[in-house]
Protein backbone atom coordinates (compact mmCIF):
# COMPACT_ATOMS: atom_id res chain seq x y z
CA UNK A 1 0.00 0.00 0.00
CA UNK A 2 1.50 3.36 -0.97
CA UNK A 3 2.02 6.03 1.68
CA UNK A 4 -0.34 8.59 0.19
CA UNK A 5 -3.39 6.33 0.45
CA UNK A 6 -5.69 6.62 3.47
CA UNK A 7 -5.87 3.24 5.07
CA UNK A 8 -7.91 2.11 8.04
CA UNK A 9 -7.30 -1.08 9.98
CA UNK A 10 -10.06 -2.15 12.38
CA UNK A 11 -9.74 -4.94 14.91
CA UNK A 12 -13.19 -6.23 15.85
CA UNK A 13 -13.68 -7.98 19.15
CA UNK A 14 -15.21 -8.39 22.56
CA UNK A 15 -13.87 -9.33 26.01
CA UNK A 16 -14.96 -12.94 25.61
CA UNK A 17 -12.37 -15.65 24.99
CA UNK A 18 -10.97 -15.82 21.47
CA UNK A 19 -13.17 -12.91 20.42
CA UNK A 20 -10.46 -10.65 21.85
CA UNK A 21 -8.11 -11.57 19.01
CA UNK A 22 -9.11 -8.71 16.70
CA UNK A 23 -8.26 -6.24 19.47
CA UNK A 24 -4.97 -8.01 20.17
CA UNK A 25 -3.92 -7.67 16.54
CA UNK A 26 -4.85 -3.97 16.59
CA UNK A 27 -2.82 -3.45 19.77
CA UNK A 28 0.17 -5.24 18.28
CA UNK A 29 0.03 -3.22 15.07
CA UNK A 30 -0.27 0.03 17.03
CA UNK A 31 2.92 -0.86 18.89
CA UNK A 32 4.98 -1.27 15.70
CA UNK A 33 7.31 1.48 14.53
CA UNK A 34 7.62 0.71 10.86
CA UNK A 35 4.09 0.87 9.60
CA UNK A 36 3.34 3.03 6.55
CA UNK A 37 2.11 6.58 7.06
CA UNK A 38 -1.54 7.17 6.33
CA UNK A 39 -2.54 4.05 8.30
CA UNK A 40 -5.05 4.49 11.11
CA UNK A 41 -5.66 1.66 13.58
CA UNK A 42 -8.89 1.35 15.55
CA UNK A 43 -10.69 -1.18 17.68
CA UNK A 44 -14.42 -1.78 17.56
CA UNK A 45 -16.83 -3.80 19.66
CA UNK A 46 -19.59 -3.88 17.08
CA UNK A 47 -19.22 -3.94 13.28
CA UNK A 48 -21.66 -1.05 12.92
CA UNK A 49 -19.03 1.28 14.42
CA UNK A 50 -16.96 0.78 11.26
CA UNK A 51 -19.64 2.55 9.22
CA UNK A 52 -18.82 5.85 10.92
CA UNK A 53 -15.10 5.67 10.15
CA UNK A 54 -15.12 5.29 6.37
CA UNK A 55 -15.02 8.90 5.22
CA UNK A 56 -12.05 9.47 2.88
CA UNK A 57 -10.82 5.91 3.45
CA UNK A 58 -9.38 4.29 0.34
CA UNK A 59 -8.39 0.94 1.85
CA UNK A 60 -10.22 -0.77 4.71
CA UNK A 61 -8.76 -3.75 6.52
CA UNK A 62 -10.87 -5.56 9.13
CA UNK A 63 -9.78 -8.40 11.37
CA UNK A 64 -12.20 -10.50 13.44
CA UNK A 65 -12.42 -13.89 15.07
CA UNK A 66 -14.10 -16.50 12.92
CA UNK A 67 -16.00 -19.19 14.79
CA UNK A 68 -14.97 -22.66 13.70
CA UNK A 69 -15.67 -26.11 15.09
CA UNK A 70 -12.08 -27.34 14.82
CA UNK A 71 -8.95 -25.35 15.54
CA UNK A 72 -6.79 -24.38 12.59
CA UNK A 73 -4.02 -21.87 12.06
CA UNK A 74 -4.62 -20.56 8.58
CA UNK A 75 -6.24 -17.15 8.26
CA UNK A 76 -9.26 -16.76 6.06
CA UNK A 77 -8.92 -13.76 3.78
CA UNK A 78 -11.32 -11.97 1.50
CA UNK A 79 -10.59 -8.97 -0.64
CA UNK A 80 -12.56 -6.91 -3.05
CA UNK A 81 -11.40 -4.13 -5.23
CA UNK A 82 -13.62 -1.63 -7.06
CA UNK A 83 -11.33 -1.70 -10.05
CA UNK A 84 -10.48 -5.37 -10.08
CA UNK A 85 -12.08 -8.70 -10.72
CA UNK A 86 -12.89 -9.34 -7.09
CA UNK A 87 -16.05 -7.30 -7.02
CA UNK A 88 -17.96 -6.75 -3.82
CA UNK A 89 -21.22 -8.16 -5.12
CA UNK A 90 -19.50 -11.45 -5.90
CA UNK A 91 -17.71 -11.81 -2.60
CA UNK A 92 -20.44 -10.57 -0.27
CA UNK A 93 -22.46 -13.80 -0.38
CA UNK A 94 -19.35 -15.75 0.57
CA UNK A 95 -18.60 -13.44 3.46
CA UNK A 96 -22.21 -13.58 4.62
CA UNK A 97 -21.91 -17.33 5.06
CA UNK A 98 -19.14 -16.92 7.60
CA UNK A 99 -20.00 -16.73 11.26
CA UNK A 100 -18.48 -13.77 13.04
CA UNK A 101 -20.67 -14.53 16.01
CA UNK A 102 -22.45 -11.24 16.59
CA UNK A 103 -25.91 -11.80 17.95
CA UNK A 104 -27.19 -8.34 18.85
CA UNK A 105 -26.40 -6.22 15.83
CA UNK A 106 -25.53 -6.34 12.15
CA UNK A 107 -22.75 -8.76 11.33
CA UNK A 108 -19.66 -7.52 9.51
CA UNK A 109 -20.83 -8.69 6.09
CA UNK A 110 -24.12 -6.84 6.57
CA UNK A 111 -22.33 -3.68 7.66
CA UNK A 112 -20.17 -3.79 4.56
CA UNK A 113 -23.27 -4.42 2.45
CA UNK A 114 -24.84 -1.40 4.15
CA UNK A 115 -21.74 0.69 3.45
CA UNK A 116 -22.12 -0.21 -0.20
CA UNK A 117 -25.78 0.83 -0.21
CA UNK A 118 -24.92 4.12 1.48
CA UNK A 119 -22.08 4.76 -0.96
CA UNK A 120 -19.44 4.63 1.76
CA UNK A 121 -17.60 1.45 0.86
CA UNK A 122 -13.90 2.13 0.21
CA UNK A 123 -12.54 1.12 -3.20
CA UNK A 124 -10.55 -1.70 -1.61
CA UNK A 125 -11.49 -3.84 1.36
CA UNK A 126 -9.62 -6.72 2.96
CA UNK A 127 -11.15 -8.91 5.67
CA UNK A 128 -9.11 -11.35 7.71
CA UNK A 129 -10.96 -14.03 9.66
CA UNK A 130 -8.94 -15.65 12.42
CA UNK A 131 -10.25 -19.17 13.17
CA UNK A 132 -11.31 -19.35 16.82
CA UNK A 133 -13.06 -21.93 18.93
CA UNK A 134 -13.97 -20.56 22.33
CA UNK A 135 -15.94 -17.46 23.21
CA UNK A 136 -16.68 -17.96 26.89
CA UNK A 137 -17.45 -14.72 28.76
CA UNK A 138 -14.53 -13.55 30.85
CA UNK A 139 -12.15 -16.20 29.56
CA UNK A 140 -8.71 -15.42 28.13
CA UNK A 141 -7.68 -16.16 24.56
CA UNK A 142 -7.14 -19.90 24.12
CA UNK A 143 -3.57 -21.13 24.37
CA UNK A 144 -3.20 -22.27 20.78
CA UNK A 145 -4.44 -18.96 19.42
CA UNK A 146 -2.27 -17.01 21.85
CA UNK A 147 0.73 -19.01 20.62
CA UNK A 148 -0.15 -18.32 17.00
CA UNK A 149 -0.77 -14.61 17.55
CA UNK A 150 2.71 -13.38 16.50
CA UNK A 151 2.45 -15.27 13.22
CA UNK A 152 -1.02 -13.87 12.59
CA UNK A 153 0.13 -10.33 13.33
CA UNK A 154 3.12 -10.59 11.01
CA UNK A 155 0.96 -11.98 8.25
CA UNK A 156 -1.49 -9.11 8.52
CA UNK A 157 1.26 -6.52 8.79
CA UNK A 158 2.90 -7.96 5.71
CA UNK A 159 -0.43 -7.80 3.91
CA UNK A 160 -0.97 -4.19 4.96
CA UNK A 161 2.47 -3.05 3.82
CA UNK A 162 2.45 -4.96 0.54
CA UNK A 163 2.82 -2.64 -2.42
Amino acid at each position, binding site marked *: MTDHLTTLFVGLGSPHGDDQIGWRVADWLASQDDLPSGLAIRKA*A*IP*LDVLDWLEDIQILGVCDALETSTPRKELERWEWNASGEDRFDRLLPILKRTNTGNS*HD*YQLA*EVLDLAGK*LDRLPPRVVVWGIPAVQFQPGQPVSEDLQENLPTICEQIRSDLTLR
Partner: protein
Amino acid sequence: MTSEESNRRTIKVNALTRVEGEGALHVKLQGDVIEDVQLAIYEPPRFFEAFLRERPLEDVPDITARICGICPVAYQMSSVHALESALGVTITPEIRRLRRLLYCAEWIESHALHMHLLHAPDFFGLASGIELAGLFPEQFNRGLRIKKHGNELLEVLGGRAIHPINVTVGGFYRVPKRQELARLIPDFEWGLDAAVESTRWVATFDFPDFHRDYQMVSLSHSDEYPMNEGRIVSTSGLSIEVTDFEQEFAEEQVPHSTALQSRKTSNQSTYHVGPLARVNLNFDRLSPTAREVAKEIGFSVPCNNPFQAIIARGLEVIHSYEEALEILRDFRFFQPARMEYEYQTGEGCAATEAPRGMIYHHYAVDDEGKITSAKIVPPTSQNQAQIEADLRDWLPHVLHEDDNQTALACERLIRSYDPCISCSTHFLKLTIERNDS
Protein backbone atom coordinates in the same frame (compact mmCIF):
# COMPACT_ATOMS: atom_id res chain seq x y z
CA MET B 1 -61.12 -39.07 2.15
CA THR B 2 -64.13 -37.12 3.38
CA SER B 3 -64.94 -33.70 2.00
CA GLU B 4 -63.97 -32.25 5.40
CA GLU B 5 -60.52 -33.79 5.21
CA SER B 6 -60.00 -32.52 1.68
CA ASN B 7 -60.95 -29.01 2.81
CA ARG B 8 -58.33 -28.87 5.52
CA ARG B 9 -55.29 -26.71 4.84
CA THR B 10 -52.31 -26.38 7.13
CA ILE B 11 -49.70 -23.72 6.70
CA LYS B 12 -46.71 -24.02 9.00
CA VAL B 13 -44.01 -21.52 9.70
CA ASN B 14 -41.36 -23.44 11.55
CA ALA B 15 -38.97 -20.68 12.49
CA LEU B 16 -39.61 -17.00 13.09
CA THR B 17 -36.69 -14.66 12.75
CA ARG B 18 -36.25 -11.01 13.75
CA VAL B 19 -37.57 -11.94 17.18
CA GLU B 20 -35.62 -12.37 20.38
CA GLY B 21 -35.70 -16.10 20.58
CA GLU B 22 -37.14 -18.52 18.11
CA GLY B 23 -40.74 -18.99 17.28
CA ALA B 24 -43.21 -20.21 14.74
CA LEU B 25 -46.75 -19.57 13.65
CA HIS B 26 -49.26 -22.29 12.95
CA VAL B 27 -52.65 -21.56 11.45
CA LYS B 28 -55.36 -24.14 10.83
CA LEU B 29 -58.28 -23.38 8.52
CA GLN B 30 -61.48 -25.13 7.64
CA GLY B 31 -62.57 -23.36 4.48
CA ASP B 32 -62.60 -19.71 5.46
CA VAL B 33 -62.96 -20.49 9.14
CA ILE B 34 -59.87 -20.07 11.28
CA GLU B 35 -59.82 -23.09 13.54
CA ASP B 36 -56.62 -22.32 15.38
CA VAL B 37 -53.83 -19.73 15.56
CA GLN B 38 -50.76 -20.56 17.59
CA LEU B 39 -47.78 -18.27 18.04
CA ALA B 40 -45.26 -20.77 19.32
CA ILE B 41 -42.11 -19.58 21.02
CA TYR B 42 -39.89 -22.66 21.22
CA GLU B 43 -36.62 -21.20 22.38
CA PRO B 44 -35.54 -23.23 25.41
CA PRO B 45 -36.57 -21.70 28.74
CA ARG B 46 -33.80 -19.53 30.13
CA PHE B 47 -34.49 -20.10 33.83
CA PHE B 48 -33.43 -16.65 35.04
CA GLU B 49 -36.03 -16.67 37.80
CA ALA B 50 -34.64 -19.98 39.02
CA PHE B 51 -30.92 -19.28 38.98
CA LEU B 52 -31.33 -15.90 40.68
CA ARG B 53 -32.32 -17.77 43.83
CA GLU B 54 -29.63 -17.77 46.53
CA ARG B 55 -27.57 -15.22 44.63
CA PRO B 56 -26.61 -11.95 46.34
CA LEU B 57 -29.16 -9.29 45.56
CA GLU B 58 -26.37 -7.06 44.21
CA ASP B 59 -25.96 -9.51 41.33
CA VAL B 60 -29.53 -9.12 40.13
CA PRO B 61 -29.27 -5.94 38.00
CA ASP B 62 -26.32 -7.24 36.00
CA ILE B 63 -27.70 -10.75 35.61
CA THR B 64 -31.17 -9.66 34.55
CA ALA B 65 -29.64 -7.18 32.10
CA ARG B 66 -28.42 -10.23 30.16
CA ILE B 67 -31.99 -11.22 29.43
CA CYS B 68 -31.86 -8.74 26.55
CA GLY B 69 -29.10 -6.94 24.68
CA ILE B 70 -31.41 -4.24 23.33
CA CYS B 71 -33.35 -3.36 26.49
CA PRO B 72 -31.04 -4.21 29.41
CA VAL B 73 -31.86 -0.96 31.24
CA ALA B 74 -35.49 -2.03 31.56
CA TYR B 75 -34.44 -5.13 33.48
CA GLN B 76 -31.96 -3.21 35.60
CA MET B 77 -34.44 -0.47 36.49
CA SER B 78 -37.22 -2.90 37.35
CA SER B 79 -34.91 -5.04 39.44
CA VAL B 80 -33.34 -2.21 41.47
CA HIS B 81 -36.68 -0.56 42.15
CA ALA B 82 -38.17 -3.88 43.30
CA LEU B 83 -35.18 -4.65 45.52
CA GLU B 84 -35.17 -1.13 46.97
CA SER B 85 -38.81 -1.64 47.82
CA ALA B 86 -37.89 -4.88 49.62
CA LEU B 87 -35.10 -3.15 51.57
CA GLY B 88 -36.95 0.05 52.35
CA VAL B 89 -34.50 2.19 50.35
CA THR B 90 -35.53 5.67 49.18
CA ILE B 91 -33.38 7.16 46.43
CA THR B 92 -32.58 10.84 46.13
CA PRO B 93 -34.21 13.05 43.47
CA GLU B 94 -30.80 13.29 41.75
CA ILE B 95 -30.51 9.50 41.43
CA ARG B 96 -34.11 9.30 40.27
CA ARG B 97 -33.45 11.85 37.56
CA LEU B 98 -30.29 10.13 36.37
CA ARG B 99 -32.24 6.87 36.08
CA ARG B 100 -34.76 8.60 33.83
CA LEU B 101 -31.85 9.82 31.70
CA LEU B 102 -30.63 6.25 31.39
CA TYR B 103 -34.07 5.13 30.30
CA CYS B 104 -34.20 7.96 27.73
CA ALA B 105 -31.00 6.52 26.28
CA GLU B 106 -32.52 3.07 25.99
CA TRP B 107 -35.76 4.27 24.44
CA ILE B 108 -33.78 6.27 21.88
CA GLU B 109 -31.53 3.38 20.80
CA SER B 110 -34.19 0.68 20.94
CA HIS B 111 -36.92 2.65 19.18
CA ALA B 112 -34.52 3.97 16.53
CA LEU B 113 -33.33 0.43 15.84
CA HIS B 114 -36.85 -0.90 15.49
CA MET B 115 -38.27 2.01 13.52
CA HIS B 116 -35.55 2.23 10.91
CA LEU B 117 -33.97 -1.20 10.67
CA LEU B 118 -36.78 -3.60 11.52
CA HIS B 119 -40.23 -2.11 11.00
CA ALA B 120 -39.90 0.54 8.27
CA PRO B 121 -38.82 -2.02 5.63
CA ASP B 122 -42.23 -3.70 6.01
CA PHE B 123 -44.02 -0.65 4.68
CA PHE B 124 -42.11 -0.85 1.40
CA GLY B 125 -42.22 -4.60 0.89
CA LEU B 126 -38.51 -4.87 1.65
CA ALA B 127 -36.83 -7.81 3.30
CA SER B 128 -34.37 -5.89 5.45
CA GLY B 129 -33.09 -2.58 6.69
CA ILE B 130 -30.17 -2.94 4.30
CA GLU B 131 -32.55 -2.84 1.36
CA LEU B 132 -34.26 0.16 2.91
CA ALA B 133 -30.89 1.91 3.14
CA GLY B 134 -30.55 1.63 -0.61
CA LEU B 135 -33.91 3.37 -1.17
CA PHE B 136 -33.84 5.86 1.70
CA PRO B 137 -30.18 6.50 2.55
CA GLU B 138 -30.79 9.86 4.22
CA GLN B 139 -33.55 8.52 6.48
CA PHE B 140 -31.60 5.37 7.24
CA ASN B 141 -28.42 7.29 8.09
CA ARG B 142 -30.45 9.52 10.35
CA GLY B 143 -31.89 6.49 12.14
CA LEU B 144 -28.46 4.98 12.62
CA ARG B 145 -27.14 8.21 14.06
CA ILE B 146 -30.10 8.47 16.43
CA LYS B 147 -29.46 4.90 17.59
CA LYS B 148 -25.82 5.73 18.10
CA HIS B 149 -26.71 8.66 20.37
CA GLY B 150 -28.69 6.33 22.58
CA ASN B 151 -25.76 3.94 22.78
CA GLU B 152 -23.32 6.77 23.54
CA LEU B 153 -25.43 8.02 26.42
CA LEU B 154 -25.73 4.46 27.69
CA GLU B 155 -21.96 4.20 27.59
CA VAL B 156 -21.35 7.49 29.42
CA LEU B 157 -23.98 6.93 32.09
CA GLY B 158 -24.18 3.16 32.16
CA GLY B 159 -20.51 2.38 31.69
CA ARG B 160 -21.07 0.31 28.56
CA ALA B 161 -23.18 0.67 25.42
CA ILE B 162 -24.58 -2.86 25.65
CA HIS B 163 -25.40 -4.39 29.06
CA PRO B 164 -24.56 -1.30 31.14
CA ILE B 165 -22.68 -1.98 34.35
CA ASN B 166 -23.14 1.19 36.40
CA VAL B 167 -26.58 0.45 37.87
CA THR B 168 -26.81 -0.88 41.39
CA VAL B 169 -29.33 -1.21 44.20
CA GLY B 170 -29.49 2.20 45.83
CA GLY B 171 -28.33 4.18 42.80
CA PHE B 172 -25.23 4.04 40.66
CA TYR B 173 -21.68 2.84 41.21
CA ARG B 174 -20.41 6.12 39.75
CA VAL B 175 -21.94 9.48 38.95
CA PRO B 176 -20.51 10.91 35.72
CA LYS B 177 -18.74 14.25 35.72
CA ARG B 178 -20.71 17.17 34.39
CA GLN B 179 -18.49 17.53 31.33
CA GLU B 180 -18.93 13.88 30.36
CA LEU B 181 -22.65 14.49 29.96
CA ALA B 182 -22.41 18.07 28.71
CA ARG B 183 -20.35 17.05 25.67
CA LEU B 184 -23.38 15.08 24.42
CA ILE B 185 -25.57 18.17 24.23
CA PRO B 186 -24.73 19.22 20.63
CA ASP B 187 -25.49 15.69 19.37
CA PHE B 188 -28.73 15.59 21.30
CA GLU B 189 -29.78 18.97 19.94
CA TRP B 190 -29.24 17.59 16.45
CA GLY B 191 -31.01 14.42 17.53
CA LEU B 192 -34.17 16.20 18.65
CA ASP B 193 -34.58 17.74 15.21
CA ALA B 194 -33.72 14.41 13.61
CA ALA B 195 -36.33 12.61 15.71
CA VAL B 196 -38.93 15.10 14.55
CA GLU B 197 -37.98 14.45 10.91
CA SER B 198 -38.04 10.68 11.42
CA THR B 199 -41.49 10.85 12.98
CA ARG B 200 -42.77 13.01 10.15
CA TRP B 201 -41.36 10.45 7.72
CA VAL B 202 -42.93 7.37 9.31
CA ALA B 203 -46.24 9.20 9.56
CA THR B 204 -46.37 9.21 5.75
CA PHE B 205 -46.33 5.41 5.53
CA ASP B 206 -49.29 3.55 4.10
CA PHE B 207 -50.88 1.92 7.14
CA PRO B 208 -53.30 -0.99 6.79
CA ASP B 209 -56.80 -0.08 7.86
CA PHE B 210 -56.86 -2.40 10.86
CA HIS B 211 -58.19 -1.38 14.24
CA ARG B 212 -58.63 -3.43 17.38
CA ASP B 213 -60.63 -2.88 20.51
CA TYR B 214 -57.61 -3.16 22.78
CA GLN B 215 -57.40 -3.10 26.49
CA MET B 216 -54.22 -1.04 26.63
CA VAL B 217 -52.18 -1.13 29.83
CA SER B 218 -49.27 1.00 31.00
CA LEU B 219 -47.90 2.89 33.94
CA SER B 220 -49.20 6.38 34.52
CA HIS B 221 -47.77 9.14 36.69
CA SER B 222 -49.40 12.41 37.66
CA ASP B 223 -46.39 14.58 36.83
CA GLU B 224 -44.42 12.91 34.07
CA TYR B 225 -44.43 10.54 31.13
CA PRO B 226 -44.07 7.13 32.79
CA MET B 227 -40.74 5.34 32.95
CA ASN B 228 -39.84 4.04 36.39
CA GLU B 229 -42.83 4.83 38.55
CA GLY B 230 -46.58 5.19 38.54
CA ARG B 231 -49.84 3.35 38.91
CA ILE B 232 -50.91 0.68 36.46
CA VAL B 233 -53.79 1.95 34.34
CA SER B 234 -55.76 0.75 31.35
CA THR B 235 -58.05 2.07 28.67
CA SER B 236 -60.88 0.12 30.31
CA GLY B 237 -60.62 2.16 33.51
CA LEU B 238 -58.19 0.09 35.57
CA SER B 239 -56.07 2.02 38.08
CA ILE B 240 -54.11 -0.06 40.58
CA GLU B 241 -50.92 0.04 42.59
CA VAL B 242 -48.04 -1.95 41.17
CA THR B 243 -48.26 -4.16 44.26
CA ASP B 244 -51.60 -5.44 42.91
CA PHE B 245 -50.11 -6.56 39.55
CA GLU B 246 -50.25 -10.27 40.38
CA GLN B 247 -53.87 -10.04 41.49
CA GLU B 248 -54.83 -8.41 38.23
CA PHE B 249 -52.67 -10.27 35.72
CA ALA B 250 -51.51 -13.86 35.59
CA GLU B 251 -49.06 -15.79 33.45
CA GLU B 252 -49.97 -19.20 32.18
CA GLN B 253 -48.20 -21.97 30.39
CA VAL B 254 -49.65 -22.89 27.02
CA PRO B 255 -48.85 -26.24 25.36
CA HIS B 256 -47.55 -24.73 22.14
CA SER B 257 -45.05 -22.25 23.57
CA THR B 258 -42.13 -22.23 26.00
CA ALA B 259 -42.88 -18.58 26.74
CA LEU B 260 -45.62 -17.85 29.24
CA GLN B 261 -48.66 -15.85 28.18
CA SER B 262 -50.37 -13.21 30.30
CA ARG B 263 -54.06 -12.50 30.71
CA LYS B 264 -56.24 -10.52 33.06
CA THR B 265 -57.27 -12.73 35.97
CA SER B 266 -60.82 -11.37 36.17
CA ASN B 267 -61.97 -12.46 32.74
CA GLN B 268 -58.98 -14.10 31.01
CA SER B 269 -58.89 -11.27 28.49
CA THR B 270 -55.80 -10.29 26.57
CA TYR B 271 -54.22 -6.87 26.89
CA HIS B 272 -51.75 -4.69 24.99
CA VAL B 273 -48.59 -3.08 26.40
CA GLY B 274 -46.03 -0.97 24.60
CA PRO B 275 -45.51 2.50 23.13
CA LEU B 276 -49.00 2.65 21.62
CA ALA B 277 -50.49 1.91 25.05
CA ARG B 278 -48.26 4.47 26.75
CA VAL B 279 -49.09 7.20 24.24
CA ASN B 280 -52.80 6.42 24.41
CA LEU B 281 -52.82 6.55 28.21
CA ASN B 282 -50.33 9.39 28.79
CA PHE B 283 -50.57 11.63 25.74
CA ASP B 284 -50.84 14.87 27.71
CA ARG B 285 -47.57 14.09 29.52
CA LEU B 286 -45.52 13.73 26.35
CA SER B 287 -43.00 16.54 25.88
CA PRO B 288 -44.20 19.76 24.20
CA THR B 289 -42.40 19.02 20.92
CA ALA B 290 -43.77 15.48 20.80
CA ARG B 291 -47.31 16.76 21.26
CA GLU B 292 -46.81 19.48 18.64
CA VAL B 293 -45.52 16.96 16.11
CA ALA B 294 -48.42 14.62 16.86
CA LYS B 295 -50.82 17.43 16.11
CA GLU B 296 -48.94 18.40 12.96
CA ILE B 297 -49.00 14.88 11.52
CA GLY B 298 -52.61 14.28 12.51
CA PHE B 299 -51.91 11.61 15.11
CA SER B 300 -54.41 11.62 17.93
CA VAL B 301 -55.57 9.31 20.68
CA PRO B 302 -57.26 6.94 20.94
CA CYS B 303 -55.21 5.16 18.30
CA ASN B 304 -55.76 1.42 18.12
CA ASN B 305 -54.08 0.48 14.87
CA PRO B 306 -51.09 -1.69 15.82
CA PHE B 307 -49.25 -0.77 12.62
CA GLN B 308 -49.17 2.84 13.78
CA ALA B 309 -47.10 1.90 16.81
CA ILE B 310 -44.14 3.11 14.72
CA ILE B 311 -45.52 6.64 15.05
CA ALA B 312 -45.87 6.18 18.81
CA ARG B 313 -42.22 5.12 18.91
CA GLY B 314 -41.26 8.22 16.95
CA LEU B 315 -43.11 10.44 19.42
CA GLU B 316 -41.35 8.70 22.30
CA VAL B 317 -37.95 9.27 20.69
CA ILE B 318 -38.79 12.98 20.44
CA HIS B 319 -39.87 12.96 24.08
CA SER B 320 -36.73 11.12 25.14
CA TYR B 321 -34.44 13.60 23.40
CA GLU B 322 -36.30 16.56 24.87
CA GLU B 323 -36.24 15.18 28.39
CA ALA B 324 -32.62 14.04 28.05
CA LEU B 325 -31.58 17.53 26.91
CA GLU B 326 -33.27 19.10 29.91
CA ILE B 327 -31.40 16.75 32.25
CA LEU B 328 -28.07 17.09 30.40
CA ARG B 329 -28.24 20.90 30.51
CA ASP B 330 -29.19 21.05 34.21
CA PHE B 331 -26.95 18.28 35.44
CA ARG B 332 -24.66 18.93 38.38
CA PHE B 333 -22.35 16.33 39.85
CA PHE B 334 -23.67 14.90 43.12
CA GLN B 335 -22.83 12.47 45.85
CA PRO B 336 -23.63 9.98 47.20
CA ALA B 337 -23.89 7.94 44.03
CA ARG B 338 -25.96 5.34 45.87
CA MET B 339 -27.90 4.96 49.08
CA GLU B 340 -26.73 2.73 51.86
CA TYR B 341 -28.91 -0.14 53.00
CA GLU B 342 -28.96 -3.04 55.43
CA TYR B 343 -30.10 -6.52 54.66
CA GLN B 344 -33.51 -7.48 55.93
CA THR B 345 -35.99 -10.17 55.13
CA GLY B 346 -38.61 -8.76 52.81
CA GLU B 347 -40.35 -8.66 49.48
CA GLY B 348 -40.62 -5.95 46.90
CA CYS B 349 -42.00 -5.43 43.43
CA ALA B 350 -41.76 -2.78 40.74
CA ALA B 351 -42.97 -2.06 37.23
CA THR B 352 -41.19 0.13 34.72
CA GLU B 353 -41.74 0.90 31.06
CA ALA B 354 -39.37 -0.99 28.80
CA PRO B 355 -39.24 0.18 25.17
CA ARG B 356 -41.62 -2.70 24.38
CA GLY B 357 -43.98 -2.10 27.27
CA MET B 358 -44.56 -2.54 30.96
CA ILE B 359 -42.20 -4.96 32.70
CA TYR B 360 -42.77 -6.30 36.21
CA HIS B 361 -40.31 -7.73 38.76
CA HIS B 362 -40.96 -9.22 42.19
CA TYR B 363 -38.23 -10.41 44.57
CA ALA B 364 -38.06 -11.88 48.04
CA VAL B 365 -34.81 -11.50 49.98
CA ASP B 366 -33.47 -12.92 53.24
CA ASP B 367 -31.55 -11.21 56.03
CA GLU B 368 -28.24 -12.21 54.43
CA GLY B 369 -29.01 -10.33 51.25
CA LYS B 370 -29.76 -13.42 49.21
CA ILE B 371 -32.60 -13.76 46.72
CA THR B 372 -35.12 -16.36 47.86
CA SER B 373 -37.58 -15.95 44.99
CA ALA B 374 -37.83 -14.02 41.77
CA LYS B 375 -40.59 -13.30 39.28
CA ILE B 376 -39.98 -11.46 36.01
CA VAL B 377 -42.79 -10.65 33.60
CA PRO B 378 -41.45 -9.09 30.37
CA PRO B 379 -43.64 -7.04 28.03
CA THR B 380 -43.28 -9.48 25.17
CA SER B 381 -44.80 -12.34 27.13
CA GLN B 382 -47.65 -10.04 28.17
CA ASN B 383 -48.34 -9.25 24.52
CA GLN B 384 -48.22 -12.81 23.20
CA ALA B 385 -51.85 -13.69 23.79
CA GLN B 386 -52.85 -10.31 22.34
CA ILE B 387 -50.71 -10.98 19.26
CA GLU B 388 -52.50 -14.30 18.71
CA ALA B 389 -55.84 -12.55 19.07
CA ASP B 390 -54.75 -9.87 16.61
CA LEU B 391 -53.64 -12.48 14.12
CA ARG B 392 -56.98 -14.21 14.37
CA ASP B 393 -58.64 -10.94 13.44
CA TRP B 394 -56.06 -10.02 10.79
CA LEU B 395 -55.97 -13.32 8.91
CA PRO B 396 -59.31 -12.91 7.12
CA HIS B 397 -57.86 -9.74 5.58
CA VAL B 398 -54.90 -11.59 4.09
CA LEU B 399 -55.83 -15.25 3.59
CA HIS B 400 -56.81 -14.66 -0.01
CA GLU B 401 -53.09 -14.30 -0.74
CA ASP B 402 -50.79 -17.25 -1.30
CA ASP B 403 -49.06 -18.75 1.71
CA ASN B 404 -45.88 -16.70 1.29
CA GLN B 405 -47.72 -13.39 1.15
CA THR B 406 -49.92 -14.43 4.05
CA ALA B 407 -46.83 -15.24 6.07
CA LEU B 408 -45.32 -11.83 5.28
CA ALA B 409 -48.52 -10.07 6.26
CA CYS B 410 -48.54 -11.92 9.58
CA GLU B 411 -44.89 -11.08 10.16
CA ARG B 412 -45.63 -7.42 9.64
CA LEU B 413 -48.35 -7.46 12.24
CA ILE B 414 -46.17 -9.25 14.77
CA ARG B 415 -43.26 -6.94 14.01
CA SER B 416 -45.40 -3.90 14.81
CA TYR B 417 -45.23 -5.10 18.43
CA ASP B 418 -41.43 -5.06 18.33
CA PRO B 419 -41.12 -8.36 20.18
CA CYS B 420 -37.65 -8.48 21.71
CA ILE B 421 -35.60 -8.71 18.61
CA SER B 422 -32.12 -9.30 17.31
CA CYS B 423 -31.63 -8.10 13.79
CA SER B 424 -32.09 -10.84 11.29
CA THR B 425 -33.67 -11.37 7.94
CA HIS B 426 -36.80 -13.47 7.87
CA PHE B 427 -38.65 -13.95 11.07
CA LEU B 428 -41.78 -15.87 10.49
CA LYS B 429 -42.19 -19.37 9.32
CA LEU B 430 -45.91 -19.74 8.82
CA THR B 431 -47.91 -22.88 8.54
CA ILE B 432 -51.51 -22.61 7.53
CA GLU B 433 -53.68 -25.68 7.49
CA ARG B 434 -56.35 -24.98 4.94
CA ASN B 435 -59.38 -27.17 4.62
CA ASP B 436 -61.10 -25.49 1.72
CA SER B 437 -64.76 -26.20 1.31
